[in-house]
C-alpha cells in the first residue's frame, strides 16, 4: 500500500497521487464492484429460489391434495431450476417425491417432469429410491423397480 502522506506536499498543496496508490484504489473499486454484484445477485437468486419453493409446494399439493404444506420438503436445484419436493403422505408407508421444473414468474404451479418414492425415514439417496417415472427414470435415479428391503 502507498502511504497517504505521499499524496500531499509539505506545503499542504495536493500533490499528484502516487501511481501505485492509484492502481490499488482501482483494484479496490473493482473488488468492491465484484462483491456488490455478488451480494445483489445472491439476494435476487435467493428470492427466486424462495419463489420456486412456494410454487413447488403448491404444485405438490395439486398432485397430492392430502399432503400437508409444512411437511413438504423442497430441495432446490443448485445448478439449474430442477427442484425435488418430497413429503410424507398421510396413510402412506413411504414418501412421494416430485421433480419440478419450469418458470416461476407469472405462473401458479410448475411442471412435474418426474417422480420417485422413498421409504419413510430414509434420506434421499440413490440406493433408497424406487418406482422412478419420467425424468427420474430417464436419468436412472432408481436402482430398484420396487421398494428396497
Amino acid at each position, binding site marked *: 500500500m502507498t502511504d497517504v502522506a505521499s499524496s500531499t506536499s509539505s506545503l499542504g498543496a495536493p500533490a499528484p497521487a502516487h501511481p501505485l496508490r492509484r492502481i490499488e484504489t482501482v483494484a*479496490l473499486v473493482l473488488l468492491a464492484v465484484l462483491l456488490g454484484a455478488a451480494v445483489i445477485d445472491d439476494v435476487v437468486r*435467493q428470492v427466486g429460489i424462495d419463489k420456486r419453493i412456494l410454487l413447488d409446494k403448491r404444485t405438490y399439493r395439486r398432485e397430492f391434495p392430502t399432503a400437508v404444506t409444512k411437511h413438504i420438503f423442497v430441495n432446490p436445484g443448485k445448478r439449474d431450476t430442477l427442484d425435488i419436493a418430497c413429503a410424507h403422505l398421510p396413510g402412506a408407508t413411504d414418501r412421494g417425491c416430485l421433480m419440478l421444473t419450469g418458470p416461476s414468474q407469472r405462473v401458479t404451479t410448475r411442471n412435474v417432469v418426474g417422480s420417485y418414492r422413498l421409504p419413510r425415514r430414509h434420506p434421499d439417496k440413490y440406493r433408497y429410491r424406487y418406482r422412478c417415472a419420467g425424468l427420474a427414470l430417464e436419468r436412472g435415479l432408481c436402482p430398484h423397480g420396487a421398494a428396497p428391503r
Partner: protein
Amino acid sequence: MTTPDAISAPVSPRPQSARPRAANGGAITGERRWSDLAVIALITGMVAGTALVVLDAAAGRSGLVPPSPHIAAYLDGVGSRLDFPTFIYVLLTMSLCFAGLLALARRVRPRTLVAAIVILHVIVFVGPVLLSQDIFSYVAYGRLGVVHGLNPFVHGPSAIPHDHIYRLVGIQWRHVPSAYGPLFTLISYPLTPLGIEGAMWGFKVLGTLASLATVWLVWRSAQRLGRDPVLPAMVVGLNPVLVLYGVGGAHNDLIMVALMMLGVWLSLGVRDGWGAGAVVAAAAVKATAVAVLPFMLLGRRRSGVITGALAAAVAVGLVSLVAFGVHSLDFVSVLRRQQSFVSFDSFPTEVTHLFGLPGVFPVDRLLLRGALIGMVVYLLVAVWRGYDWVSGAAWAMLAIAVTTTWLLAWYTLWTLPLAAIARDRRVLVATLGVQALFIVHQCTPLFSPL
C-alpha cells in the same frame, strides 16, 4: 514520505480540534441549530430502534432470540414478539441514522456522542441475548472445566449431555471442543460458579465493558495520532453491527478487540513491549488478533515488540500449561476444522453463486488462502517501506473477514477500531462498505414470498 515512527509517534494529547466554531463568539447560528437538531434526531432514531429490538426480543418466542433462560423477564409484556422484518427494518433505519451521524460527525459534541454510546450499550445490556447462541458455548466450556472436571480443549459440550447448558448450545457446536484461546477459557472459569444465568450476565458485563473500553481506546489512540477523536469513536461506538450483533450477543470478539486496541494504544505511546504483550493476550482470547503482531513489529521496528510478545507468549503458555495441560494448543486444530465451514453470508459463497457455481469447493479454498497470503505479504512489504502499520493491520483483518467462508456479523468488527484510527481512509470506507453489504444480504427475507 512519512516514516513509520512519524506516523505513530505520540503527539500532544489535546489535538487541535477540527470542529467548527461559530465566528460570532460562540453564538449559535441557524445552521448550527439545525445540525444540532439533526444530530439529536438521528441519535434518537438509533436509541429508539435499539430499544424496540431489545423490548421485542425480551418478549421471547422469536427466531432471532436463542432459546435461553429468561434473563430479561422483567421486560416481559412491554414489547411484542420480535419478527425478522421488524429487525431488518430497525437495522436498516439504524444504519441510515449511523450514516447520517458520520456525515455530521464534525457537528456532534463529544458529550452527546459519549452519552449516546453509553445509552445504546446499556439498552442492549439489560435485554436478552440477541442473534447468537455462542454465549452458551462459552458457559458450557466453563462448566466442562469447573463443574465436571473435563478439559474444554479435549471435550465438547456433548460430554455433559445431562447438564442443562447442553441443550442451549448450538447443535453444530455440541461436539466441538473450545476453539477459543486459553485466556478466554480461563476468564470463563470464575463466572461458572454463578450458575448458567449468572455466567450469562457475567459475559454480558464483560462484552459491554470491552466494547466501551474499545471506544475509549479508539478515542485515546486518535488523540495520540493528533486527530479529532469524535469520528473514530463514533464509527465504533454507534456502529449498528457492534451494538446489535456484538454487544447483543455478548461475543468474546469484543474482549479480543479491546485487548488488541489496548496493544495498539500502548504501542502508539511508545510502550511497545506492553503493546505487543496486549496483542498476544488478545490472541489468547481469539487467535485472529495475532494478525496484528507482524504489522506492529515491522511498523514500530523496536526490539520491545519482540521481547514483549515473547514474554507474553511464554506467560500465557505457562498459565495454559498449568490450567489445561498440553491440550491448550488443541484449539488451533479446531480452528482449522472450522475454516472448512461455509456460511451463507460469506463473500466467497456469494461470489461462487455469481459465477453459477453451487458453492465453495476445496480448490476455491486454496485460491482464497493464496489470495489472503498474497495480500498479507504485500501489506507487510508496504509497512516495511513506510506505510502506516495500523492501516496495514486493518487491511489484513478485513482481508481475513472477506476471504473466510465462515463469516458472521461480528467478524466484521475485528477491523472496525483499527480502520477508525487508520491513516489510510480507504480502509475505513472499505470496512463500512463490507458491513453495508452484509446488511444488504440480511435483507433477503424482506423480498422473499415465504
